[in-house]
């Protein structure tokens, strides 16, 4: 009799992560391209103020890696949608898998990708400084000194935000897989919401939501807010996709 194998979920998930890391190499190359584009945009400065005081005329350019971070979040959002499209999904089911292991490995993959994105985004601010030093004809450059611990918390916070966006993308991707019409419904509802509700009413819901996450001063609160929200998004996606068939 042929003996049967009974691998544990953890083992399969680990193998799938390795498999996906190899096969999703394209994600990292788009990350590099996107961050370079964002870097170029950042040379223009994200803020500017100027004025004259008696005989003194001054202009201040404010440079930051914010654009790079925003680009990276968008990149994570789109990646997460893509990972749920037909092509990726079929790659997924070509070897040993079930829906739980597929989702778990996707989530871990997105987490790894978010961390990488966060590290490169934060470090690119140094690249930005060097760039400004060489290319800008500004007379004086003032740096904010960043300590290692601050850099580390910065990276973690950025990673969590990027991961949050991938969670958002992941659930959208899953809903689209559940029913193709979501691919139209979600953008229409979103845009409609912006135009009708956000623009006309007094309450700016999207802005409030943004503030809730991005204006959080406490690192620990920020961490728990983003982790809990991403966890919620991914769990919802898993619950939905557990019922789905593959290769339709």
């Amino acid at each position: 009799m042929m003996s049967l194998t009974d691998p544990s979920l953890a083992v399969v998930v680990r193998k799938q992560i390795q498999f996906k890391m190899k096969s999703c190499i394209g994600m990292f190359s788009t990350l590099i391209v996107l961050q370079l584009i964002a870097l170029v945009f950042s040379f223009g400065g994200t803020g500017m103020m100027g004025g004259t005081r008696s005989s003194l005329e001054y202009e201040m350019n404010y440079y930051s890696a914010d654009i790079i971070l925003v680009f990276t979040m968008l990149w994570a959002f789109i990646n997460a949608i893509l990972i749920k499209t037909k092509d990726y999904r079929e790659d997924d089911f070509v070897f040993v898998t079930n829906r739980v292991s597929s989702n778990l490995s996707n989530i871990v993959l997105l987490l790894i990708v978010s961390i990488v994105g966060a590290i490169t985004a934060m470090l690119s601010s140094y690249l930005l400084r060097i760039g400004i030093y060489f290319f800008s004809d500004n007379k004086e450059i003032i740096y904010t000194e960043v300590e290692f611990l601050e850099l580390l918390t910065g990276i973690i916070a950025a990673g969590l935000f990027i991961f949050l966006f991938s969670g958002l993308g992941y659930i959208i991707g899953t809903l689209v897989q559940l029913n193709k019409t979501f691919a139209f419904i979600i953008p229409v509802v979103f845009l409609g919401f912006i135009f009708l509700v956000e623009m006309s009413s007094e309450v700016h819901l999207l802005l409030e939501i943004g503030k809730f996450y991005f204006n959080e001063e406490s690192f620990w609160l920020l961490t728990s807010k983003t982790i809990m929200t991403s966890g919620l998004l991914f769990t919802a996606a898993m619950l939905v996709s557990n019922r789905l068939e593959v290769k339709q």
Partner: protein
Amino acid sequence: MKVVECNELTKEHGQRKALSNLSVTIEENKITGLIGRNGSGKTTLLKILAGFWAESSGQVNVFSNRPFNSLFVSANTVFVDDQMNFPTALTLKEILEQASKFYEKWDMDLALRLFDYFSFDSKQIHNNLSKGNRSTFNMIIGLASRCALTIFDEPTTGMDAAVRKDFYRALLKDYLAHPRSIIISSHYLDELEVVLEDVLLIEEGSNLLHMPIEELKEYAIGLSGSSDQIDGWISDIDVVHTNTVGLDSKYAAVKNDFTGEALEQIKRSGVQVSSVSPGDLCVYLTQTTTGGIDDVFDRS
């Protein structure tokens, strides 16, 4: 041990029933040919067995587990078809390496020897292969993974005659060395039949017939002679297929329930008795419309 058990298995795609109350049991370590016309539900059945699709009603068990969403079934099953999709970032060699990590019984030595035999280039990308080469490569995955349940859905799509022959030979040799349950779907039974043990013929999503191929070969016999003679013999027996040949000759494939003596009598009356190949028989049994293609043209 029973590898596959289906009981009243039904699968609906919207309004259409792809499988309807299919009941079948497949014992372990057999090579079973799954035969049926286009749209008879072959692929649907196989995808349910592989755990890709969920059944709509009825029971289905593979290794005594419901296959849908089962990691256990997935680990012991390989599903090969011409839609197999591999990441474009991986070369053929890398795909083999990845496969070896997932399948515990994977035989890399066999995979590489087949890989070289069919002159694949390790740097090639799966997407760029020709249709036939893609099928050949997928077949290597199917054989080398040595899964206890190995499913081939139309594995020979695009393969030329020489490769098909090699495939059947490779399949048989590897099966002899490592017996396992293999299901191959195809609409060409003739090429396949020598390697099969059992045949499962499905029609409109139901189990029409499931028996050893050797029994299927003797299931029916062909009688040919003058129309009057043939009509006389077949009036009260199970007729599978009739065909008028020329002006006054007739061919009838009938269920082989004759005793040796009756057969002698038939032969002596001048009727020619022939065997009916399993391939022809399956075509006769699954003919949905009465008559054949000729009747489309003969409107008189």
